């Protein structure tokens, strides 16, 4: 992901859902809700938001988080929704017959939903790698403590 100007590029990942059969206006209303939120928090918001578009946006965000976790080795709890936007897709045209031989157009709009997540701490990839080692070191003192308690 290219950074803007001199801003340091934070590690992140993105996901795009293309040709989603929801109008861009309705999708934007939902996407505006989660921009800038912590990724996990945004997921719960989308899970309970009553708008129909929230289900589609939920999937894209979940995919972006999965990309960050599996491809970029980032900690999923340290992610922010850094970028979220909706582009217009191709419109399907349908016709509604009207009185006196007229035909009105029905536009079935589609959209492309893009969500990018970013790790807040630049050291996140190393942190995620060290995470596997960390529980072992944490567990050891805890065990030692319980042993001392048993002794008492």
């Amino acid at each position, binding site marked *: 992901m290219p950074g803007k100007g001199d801003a340091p590029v934070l590690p992140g990942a993105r996901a795009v859902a293309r040709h989603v059969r929801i109008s861009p*206006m309705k999708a934007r*209303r*939902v996407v*505006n*809700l989660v921009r800038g939120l912590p990724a996990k928090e945004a997921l*719960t*918001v989308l899970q*309970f*938001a*009553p*708008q129909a578009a929230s289900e589609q946006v939920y999937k894209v965000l979940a995919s972006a988080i999965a990309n960050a976790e599996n491809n970029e080795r980032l900690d999923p709890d340290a992610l922010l929704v850094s970028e979220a936007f909706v582009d217009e897709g191709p419109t399907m045209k349908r016709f509604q017959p009207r009185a006196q031989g007229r035909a009105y157009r029905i536009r079935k709009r589609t959209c492309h939903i893009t969500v990018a997540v970013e790790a807040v701490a630049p050291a996140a990839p190393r942190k995620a790698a060290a995470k596997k080692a960390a529980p072992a070191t944490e567990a050891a003192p805890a065990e030692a403590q319980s042993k001392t308690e048993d002794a008492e």
Partner: protein
Amino acid sequence: MAVPKRKLSRSNTRHRRAQWKATLPQLSPCPCPRKEMVVPHRACTHCGVYKGRQVVDQP
């Protein structure tokens, strides 16, 4: 037939559309140890607890 006298400016259109916003759902933590967020006045979707008692059988 009554028709609009003036064209609605893009500015007015945009101002109107900018007010059409979704509100964040009100969420509160479930008392269960997992602390999942739940919608008030609904049973928790994860543990089936409502008002501190089990109302739905756990999956």
